[in-house]
């Protein structure tokens, strides 16, 4: 026997040290990670901007940017809120669909459709910094 630990605690301590000697901790993300992940978001927000000016969402050529330049007047910080046009409290993505179906005369997107995610990314990015005000009309 080359090595004999004198206490149980010492054994445990040595095991721990061995286990964690080379693996990074799950919650120790770095500035580099933050920048990467923000960049990932920006890619999708950019897609959202492209959709914002795309006639493909509707069937009549009308685009979101016509009434909402720079996504102004969309008020993402106020959702969920009572949406008169739907008769109930609704989330942002549902109102996006209302606009796609009504002024744009198009078909609604699923909540997890990449296009819907991108649109929400763009809308919220243009509204960054504004305090949350859920329910506000």
């Amino acid at each position: 026997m080359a090595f004999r630990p004198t206490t149980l605690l010492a054994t445990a301590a040595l095991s721990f040290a061995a286990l964690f000697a080379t693996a990074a901790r799950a919650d120790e993300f770095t500035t580099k990670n933050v920048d990467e992940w923000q960049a990932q978001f920006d890619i999708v927000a950019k897609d959202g901007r492209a959709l914002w000016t795309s006639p493909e969402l509707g069937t009549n050529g009308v685009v979101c940017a016509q009434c909402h330049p720079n996504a102004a007047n969309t008020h993402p910080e106020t959702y969920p809120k009572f949406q008169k046009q739907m008769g109930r409290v609704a989330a942002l993505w549902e109102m996006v669909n209302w606009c796609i179906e009504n002024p744009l005369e198009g078909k609604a997107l699923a909540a997890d459709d990449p296009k819907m995610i991108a649109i929400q990314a763009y809308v919220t990015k243009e509204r960054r910094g504004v305090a949350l005000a859920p329910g506000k009309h």
Partner: protein
Amino acid sequence: MGIDRRGFLKSVSGTLLAGALPVTLVELAFAKSSENFTFAYISDSHIQHIKGNKFVRNWDRGLLRAVAETNLMTPKPDFVMFGGDLAQLGTREELDHGAEMLSALSYKIHMVMGEHDYYLDLGEYWSELFGPHYYSFDHKGVHFVVLNSILTYDDWTYNRWESGKQRMGEMAGLDNPNGSPFMVGEKQRTWLKQDLAKISKDTSVVVFSHSPLQKIYKGWNFWTEDAEDIQAILAPFNQVNVVYGHVHQIQYNQIGNIAFNSVMATAWPWPYPESYAQAESHLPVLTVPMNRADPFFERDATGWQFIDVNTGRVDLRYNLYDNSSRTVAFNDAKRRPEDTAYQNPANRIKAQDHY
């Protein structure tokens, strides 16, 4: 509209009513009635072609309704102005369809150029339909000037794009970072100086322009690059009124002798620049905003207007659908335009909160 119709009807003879439609009325308490008159203003219809003979129904309905209501006006307006952006992408189909709808108006029409009409073919088809891009005319002692104020730098107009269609597409996006600021330009400024040299400083001047002839928010081209130069040319005149379109919302302002008033779009409303959180803008402080729209009602926050010229100053009466109408009149005591109901902050209503 808040005017005592019964009083008016009692004070005029029966013959006025025959064939006339006493739906909207101009105040009759004028000092010199021959110098006061009304004209109608319809603007920013953005007729948008889809395919074949299909157009975006929403914008078509806006123009149809404005024309129908203007035809109901009594007393009849002296003429009608169209404030620009008849078409959305300046195509022949759109200009023809728009012109056809305007032809239902029972009055003489004067046209103002908008960028959506211009950048496809630099106004060539527009001239065929409507005539010159800038001009002046006199009416009952008032000198009217129409400017083409949506021009831009030559380089952008002539050298940047592969086709007129691409150029028009780029200018069509209000928030497009590839756009270029509007201007009147040196040629028209020179023409304007000469045109105004013929009239006395006391003559009332009304300038029609698509862009605001002010610098409000560059990001959305609520902007005229040579605004200060134009204002300097107009400054010597005692009563100048600028009426502009493009912004699709109520705005008004006073700079020196010059009163500025925007007109509503018939097509759709635009947000106020202060509602874009990422940029600074300079909405005229005087402005009491229009009501926020419920997008279910396609005509909400759209409308048309008629303008009373009253002792050389303009009062705008905005006819708004699904909302109370608004009147922005020149306040002689304060020497600036003011909303007759809501200018006092204590009178504002919730619907005027924009954020």
